[in-house]
């Protein structure tokens, strides 16, 4: 029990006691305390056991650099640092020894905020406050970020400043290009916070950034330097000044620079017995005022003793082996160490600034700052080696009397020692990046704040090189760990990704549809009735289309309006087949290839006027196709006078398919001559349908007599309902995407993305008839590559299992009948109501030539024999479709 609360002082509110529990022990602190300061004030010295060796560990630091004092906060057990968690009444925390318990999934939403500022100041210490005041005085929008809570009231000039935002408890976790600062604001569980307050992830675009980020003190590496009671000197000072807590009763200060002297004096003044200042330097610097405390200059702490906490400190001269055998033993419960300071400039490194070792400052820093960034305050002083920070005489490794290195801790969180670095060197490693990965030093969730530079110092000492030769390892965002839920923000659950719905969506929901995700769209998959299985529903829906009439929501198809004097020429270039000869009022199926000749997308193009086409794309491909067409138009063919406009959401569409579709359409559009002669396959009509202005295409993706009716999307629901009402006596049946897939597969129609995977050509699909020989099109130049004309390419075939009830899973490998090796795969496989059996489509090596022979499918480890047949299994003469 070493720490204690001073009778006076600190920025805590002594009128407001706060009660909390630590590992079930009820303890008291004050408003303004952190868990760490309250634990110290209660004399708790052991806060954890180390991860590998189980050694007792105490609080080392006062900020985000703390390596030891990890705690799990109830409920949920979120892992935090005791130095960062503000004390609130009823707080319950557990120590974390070794591995942390798995925290519960925190379902509390968090939010993202975008903000824009002329100046962002990071750090609200004295220098940060001054910088913020200056920026406010200069006019403009100013943001001040402070990772901890407010150290006190804001100074005059900031309290009510317009265009000034102060964000306490907000850690800048990354700096990205053009001064984009990303910061995490903790709002829950902070004093006075609404429990519903959401944590925020700020994206702040700043014209100028001021880094008032301070500096992190380095420990010294000596034997048994990890005992509870061994703390960073500057942090000991913070606990005194800010929290009114003395970290011990009998102290030794061990330093390699002048900065710790003031801490020694302050401890002494607070009533702590400071036995000695052990200074590695023979001549302490000009700012080293010991205030009467004994200074052992040119000495080092070579070791410590203790059981749970620190008991004594072993002091030897820095040079002179003879005295090592008999060190001076000083009893102490607190050892305040200062091995030097590192400026907190990792935010600079995130965008590529290179930190280099600055011998005059004894740290990794920068000599030039990026444009529109300024460093101020302690960070600037440490970086530049100003004042006390010019007095460092680095000691990277204090030898132990017995020469051992295995209790010289470099990374307390990882329990990694100088001996681990020695092993890395002995294994031949020289690069700090390799040594880091071998030893794990710097890979803890403190990201090596207190260990990174010491690792390099020890490595340099062992390699006999200098730190100038060893760069720091790479610093990455986030600067401190932030919860995944904060990165995700509101984009979880229903909001995870945009959900696109058609105007008819409500009808599908009302009809009990199951939905399928197609791109971002929700498409009706099937409409199982009460007690009906999914498979039975699909069979029923297919049968309705083949025998009666079915309707399907096709609003999701991509639609592109193409207009301009060169529209015909443009469409000729982007599809493989010719469109410039297409008559006004007619449609044609079109295939698009990528420049490498592979199938990219398919759809139809309809000529609405000489200079006006309406293109459809696949549901999932709409955005990519428009981008692709725009790219060609803008970069390759700027001379073409063509404009492309997405009208996907403008139109809602319903397919009416089946032998009775003509009768149903005639009822809906009494003014339209629906006879086969007047309204043939692949033509379009503009007509009022149930009093709705509509564009009616005679088109088919099922192989049946079929129409697709399009209206302005705000009439979509009315259209669907009108069709359903008019066809009630025909038993008009809504069908979903699964039935559509079956119907088109029976007809041998491919689906881009199902039969194709970016390596499939038109010829592979048996669509070589669509490749115009009299015009150029995208992908043409690639088609005569030898690889694309090989006879053994995988080609589309139909596949019929011997067992008509056996459903071969899609993706199954095809193997030569009785032979070895993979010859292809199944791309589509269904049960067919029309065929009365199962069937499949597949891509099979040399498949066209093998029609009529046999192949095996690998199904759950068994070989299933299949007949290889033509891919078109339904109405190969197109009599139903064209009738």
């Amino acid at each position, binding site marked *: 029990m070493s720490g204690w609360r001073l009778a006076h002082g600190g920025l805590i509110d002594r009128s407001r006691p706060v009660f909390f529990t630590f590992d079930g022990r009820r303890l008291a602190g004050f408003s303004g305390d952190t868990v760490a300061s309250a634990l110290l004030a209660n004399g708790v010295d052991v806060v954890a056991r180390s991860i590998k060796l189980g050694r007792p560990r105490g609080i080392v630091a006062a900020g985000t650099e703390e390596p030891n004092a990890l705690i799990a906060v109830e409920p949920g057990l979120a892992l935090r640092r005791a130095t960062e968690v503000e004390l609130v009444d009823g707080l319950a925390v557990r120590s974390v020894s070794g591995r942390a318990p798995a925290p519960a999934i925190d379902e509390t*939403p968090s*939010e*993202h*905020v*975008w*903000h*824009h500022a002329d100046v962002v100041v990071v750090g609200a210490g004295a220098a940060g406050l001054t910088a913020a005041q200056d920026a406010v005085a200069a006019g403009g*929008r100013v943001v001040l970020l402070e990772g901890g809570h407010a150290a006190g009231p804001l100074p005059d000039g900031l309290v009510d400043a317009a265009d000034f935002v102060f964000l306490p408890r907000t850690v800048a976790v990354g700096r990205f290009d053009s001064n984009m600062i990303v910061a995490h604001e903790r709002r829950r569980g902070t004093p006075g916070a*609404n429990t*519903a*307050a*959401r944590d925020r992830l700020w*994206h702040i*675009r700043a014209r100028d950034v001021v880094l008032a980020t301070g500096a992190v003190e380095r420990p010294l590496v000596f034997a048994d330097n990890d005992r509870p009671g061994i703390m960073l000197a500057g942090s000991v000072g913070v606990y005194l000044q800010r929290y009114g807590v003395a970290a011990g009763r009998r102290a030794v200060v061990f330093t390699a620079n002048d900065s710790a002297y003031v801490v020694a004096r302050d401890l002494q003044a607070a009533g702590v017995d400071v036995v000695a200042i052990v200074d590695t330097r023979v001549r302490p610097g000009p700012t080293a005022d010991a205030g009467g405390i004994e200074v052992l200059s040119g000495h080092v702490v070579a070791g410590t003793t203790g059981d749970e906490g620190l008991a004594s400190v072993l002091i030897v001269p820095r040079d002179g082996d003879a005295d090592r055998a008999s060190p001076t033993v000083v009893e102490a419960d607190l050892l305040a160490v200062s091995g030097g300071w590192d400026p907190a400039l990792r935010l600079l490194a995130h965008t590529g600034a290179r930190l280099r070792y600055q011998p005059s400052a004894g740290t990794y820093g920068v000599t030039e700052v990026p444009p529109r960034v300024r460093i101020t305050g302690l960070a600037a002083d440490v970086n530049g080696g100003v004042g006390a920070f010019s007095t460092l005489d680095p000691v990277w490794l204090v030898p132990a009397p017995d020469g051992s290195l295995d209790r010289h801790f470099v990374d307390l969180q990882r329990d990694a020692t100088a001996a681990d670095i020695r092993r890395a060197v002995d294994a031949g490693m020289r690069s700090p990046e390799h040594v880091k990965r071998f030893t794990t030093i710097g890979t803890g969730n403190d990201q090596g704040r207190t260990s990174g530079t010491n690792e390099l110092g020890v490595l340099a000492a062992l390699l006999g090189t200098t730190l100038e030769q060893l760069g720091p390892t790479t610093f990455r965002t986030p600067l401190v760990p932030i919860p995944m839920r904060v990165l995700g923000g*509101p*984009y979880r659950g*229903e*909001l995870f*990704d*945009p*959900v*696109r*719905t*058609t*105007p008819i969506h*409500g009808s599908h929901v009302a009809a009990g549809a199951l939905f399928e995700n197609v791109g971002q*769209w929700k498409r009706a998959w099937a409409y199982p009735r009460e007690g009906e299985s999914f498979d039975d529903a699909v069979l029923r829906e297919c049968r309705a289309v083949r025998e009666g009439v079915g309707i399907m929501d096709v609003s*999701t198809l991509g639609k592109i*309006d193409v*207009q*301009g*004097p060169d529209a015909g020429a443009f469409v000729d270039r982007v599809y493989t087949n010719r469109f410039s000869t297409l008559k006004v009022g007619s449609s044609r199926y079109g295939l698009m290839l990528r420049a490498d000749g592979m199938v990219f997308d398919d759809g139809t193009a309809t000529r609405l006027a000489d*200079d006006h086409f309406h293109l459809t794309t696949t549901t999932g491909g709409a955005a990519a196709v428009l981008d692709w067409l725009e790219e060609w138009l803008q970069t390759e063919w700027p001379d073409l*006078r063509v*404009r492309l*406009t*997405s*009208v*996907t*959401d*403008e*139109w809602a569409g319903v397919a009416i398919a089946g032998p009775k579709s003509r009768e149903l359409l005639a009822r809906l559009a009494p003014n339209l001559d629906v006879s086969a002669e007047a309204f043939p396959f692949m033509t379009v009509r503009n007509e009022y349908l149930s*009093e*709705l202005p509509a564009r009616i295409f005679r088109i088919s993706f099922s192989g049946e007599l079929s129409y697709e009716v399009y209206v*302005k*999307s*705000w*009439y*979509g*629901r*009315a*259209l669907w309902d*009108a069709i359903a009402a008019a066809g009630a006596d025909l038993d008009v049946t809504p069908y979903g995407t699964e039935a559509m897939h079956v119907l088109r597969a029976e007809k041998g129609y491919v689906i881009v993305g199902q039969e194709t995977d970016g390596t499939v050509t038109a010829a592979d699909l048996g669509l070589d008839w669509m490749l115009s020989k009299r015009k150029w099109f995208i992908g043409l130049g690639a088609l005569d590559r030898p690889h694309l004309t090989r006879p053994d390419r995988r080609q589309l075939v139909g596949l019929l299992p011997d067992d008509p009830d056996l459903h071969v899973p899609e993706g199954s490998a095809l193997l030569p009948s009785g032979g070895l090796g993979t010859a292809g795969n199944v791309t589509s496989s269904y049960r067919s109501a029309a065929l009365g059996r199962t069937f499949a489509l597949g891509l099979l090596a040399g498949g066209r030539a093998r029609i009529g022979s046999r192949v095996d499918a690998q199904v759950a480890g068994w070989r299933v024999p299949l007949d290889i047949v033509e891919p078109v299994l339904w109405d190969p003469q197109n009599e139903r479709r064209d009738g």
Partner: protein
Amino acid sequence: MVEQRFADGGAVSPLGNRTFDPVVVVAGPGVEVLEHSFTDQLDVRLDPEPAVLGALGDRLRVAIPAEPNRVGRDGRRLALWLAPDEWLVLDPDNLEDDVARLTMEGGWPPDVTFVDVSAHRTLLELRGRDARALLARGCPLDLDPRVFGPDHCAQTLLARVDVILFRLDGTDAFGVLVRASFARYLVAWLTDALEGFYA
């Protein structure tokens, strides 16, 4: 004229509204989100020759801005610059008559095209003292009035949705044009964001 198109009562907006009148779809103490259903919209493409822009503006009775990301305004009729050769003209009242006249009269250079996109997007209005702060929960643009002024517009992201954003009438109110199929998702996001905003 427009009313007649809806005489059958069949039109439903992407957010389920059946009236021309703005309808509040979600609201909090300092902000209201309304849908202006069935706002007429015309996509206009042309090479920005000043003479053509001027003539078009005369015929559409709204100034067609030549400067990027700006809005021409005449009462409730707006012309939004979308791209070097693209504008969106919108009018919550009635654009159809002018468009019919415009296309019938002809006389435009051959590459001038018009596409009716009235049902492609729906118009949301975000108004109230917190409207801008609410947008900042999902939009990376700087919407400070000193930066994004009354005559500014932009194509940007709100939440994860492409939108066209502009100041509706020079006050706190913003116009957000969102594609019909994304409208419900966007409102779900706004509803969630509001919940957090006033938590």
